[in-house]
């Protein structure tokens, strides 16, 4: 039920409106969960740095149905007056109203903030914040089309890391991120929304392959500890190394063409 509060700053529609109910809704769900790729295959990544001319650094990432744009502004002056020895990293995520199957209100809610926290966790250890006292690095992420929250967090971290590199901010390494869903005994990499809904648990791994270190593990759902470790160490880690080379490649190509 779309509860739209009367927002004085926007053009408002009717007080209450409902997404359309389709007569064949029950049949459609079962069709969607059949995966068209192999369990170990991730969706092809299209990554383009330097798309937003107004920002210090930017990146646009597209993986089949997930489209995310990211811009980095900074280092710029901190708004607060308290002195901070290390720089601050501020990650803000915004969904466009048409990005999900049900229209989202333009207001930021808890889901936006939790994705922001996840991406912050993934990239903060890779930036040399001690070089920017009293400054803030702002990372703004806009999710244009959403196909699964795990995919959003993974792609968002990739876009953020690429944008930071594009901005020329000093980092210890590029962050590569990948997600996996566990369905029974099977591990499916890079789940779409339908696949994630049908799974019992999911893991999102963010790491710096260049330094062979992990920056963030986000696990939710039911799985045994052995299963989780197996997923992370065997499959996700190796995938992240592949993804890292994709990111490096796109950054090099972008630099060469400029």
């Amino acid at each position: 039920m779309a509860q739209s509060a009367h927002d004085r700053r926007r053009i408002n529609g009717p007080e209450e409106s409902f997404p359309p109910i389709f007569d064949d809704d029950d049949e459609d769900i079962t069709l969607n969960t059949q995966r068209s790729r192999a369990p170990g295959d991730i969706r092809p990544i299209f990554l383009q740095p330097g798309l937003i001319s107004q920002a210090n650094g930017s990146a646009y990432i597209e993986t089949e149905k997930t489209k995310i744009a990211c811009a980095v502004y900074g280092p710029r002056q901190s708004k607060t007056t308290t002195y901070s020895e290390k720089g601050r990293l501020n990650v803000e995520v915004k969904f466009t109203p048409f990005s999900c199957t049900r229209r989202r209100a333009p207001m930021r809610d808890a889901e936006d903030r939790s994705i922001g926290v996840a991406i912050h966790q993934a990239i903060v250890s890779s930036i040399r914040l001690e070089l920017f006292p009293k400054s803030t690095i702002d990372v703004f992420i806009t999710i244009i089309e959403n196909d699964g929250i795990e995919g959003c967090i993974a792609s968002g971290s990739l876009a953020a890391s690429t944008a930071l590199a594009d901005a020329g901010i000093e980092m210890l390494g590029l962050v590569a991120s990948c997600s996996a869903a566990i369905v029974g005994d099977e591990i499916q990499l890079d789940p779409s929304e339908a696949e994630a809904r049908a799974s019992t648990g999911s893991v999102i791994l963010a790491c710096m392959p260049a330094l062979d270190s992990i920056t963030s593990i986000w696990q939710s759902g039911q799985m045994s500890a052995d299963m989780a470790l197996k997923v992370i160490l065997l499959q996700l880690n190796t995938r992240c190394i592949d993804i890292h080379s994709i990111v490096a490649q796109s950054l090099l190509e972008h630099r060469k063409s400029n």
Partner: protein
Amino acid sequence: MSSSSATNPSTADETLRAQIFQRLHPRVYLERFIAEKIRPDGRTFDEWRNVSVNVGSISTADGSALVRMGDTTIVCGVKAEIAEPELDRPDLGYLVPNIDLPAICSPKFKPGPPAEEAQVLSDRLNEALVASGVLSLSSLCIHPGKAVWTLYVDCTCINYDGNAFDAALLAMLGALRNTTLPKATYDEETGRTTCSRKTRSPLQLTRNFASTSFGVLDTSHVLSDPTAFEEPLMDVTLTVIVDDRGELISTTESGGAISEETLLRCINRAKERVLQLKD
């Protein structure tokens, strides 16, 4: 060898000095270009930036369009929902346009609720769509008095390089043209509306129009399609919306006085532009 290394640092030096000058004295910087009859990005006063429109790329939206006008990038998506109509207008649907200028698109926008510029743009876009009558609201009726379509047309700016209004209007029209609505049937007994996933029909749009914006500097120089650098330096901004049959839909002017001759000249340029954009 030595001569090329001697010239390289000095050209890099010059570009740096020019950039610093642009930051510290923007108006003088622009006036120096105007005196040479050219603009900082190399265009003549009358030249438009390249426009590219890409429709239907977002599968979660019922209709979508991505417009790039030079560097200004705007994404627009249409979502259709079902609502009860107003009591005094039982057979009219709703068309709700909105534009959002988030912090991602420019350093001058802070994160948070819509700033003044976004609110003004939303309002102007709403007026333009209503005044033009581009979509007949009675065509959105499913069952009079019980169920009507509500079209939420949301634009998000990804990169703000001036002239967001033109790009946003183009994006909204592109998205509306791309929108298809499922066939809806209202069940009188249960009071529920169910839609068919299989049959979708496009919207009936009545006109095809576009807007053109101009900035006037020192009452005599009319620059069309200003960039984000030129926009705040303009004395007067003028926007003309014309449809493809040459009929004037609206003119908006703010900032100061302009001569009638300038206004007529701009209207004529807008008419040419609409025909240009049709392809």
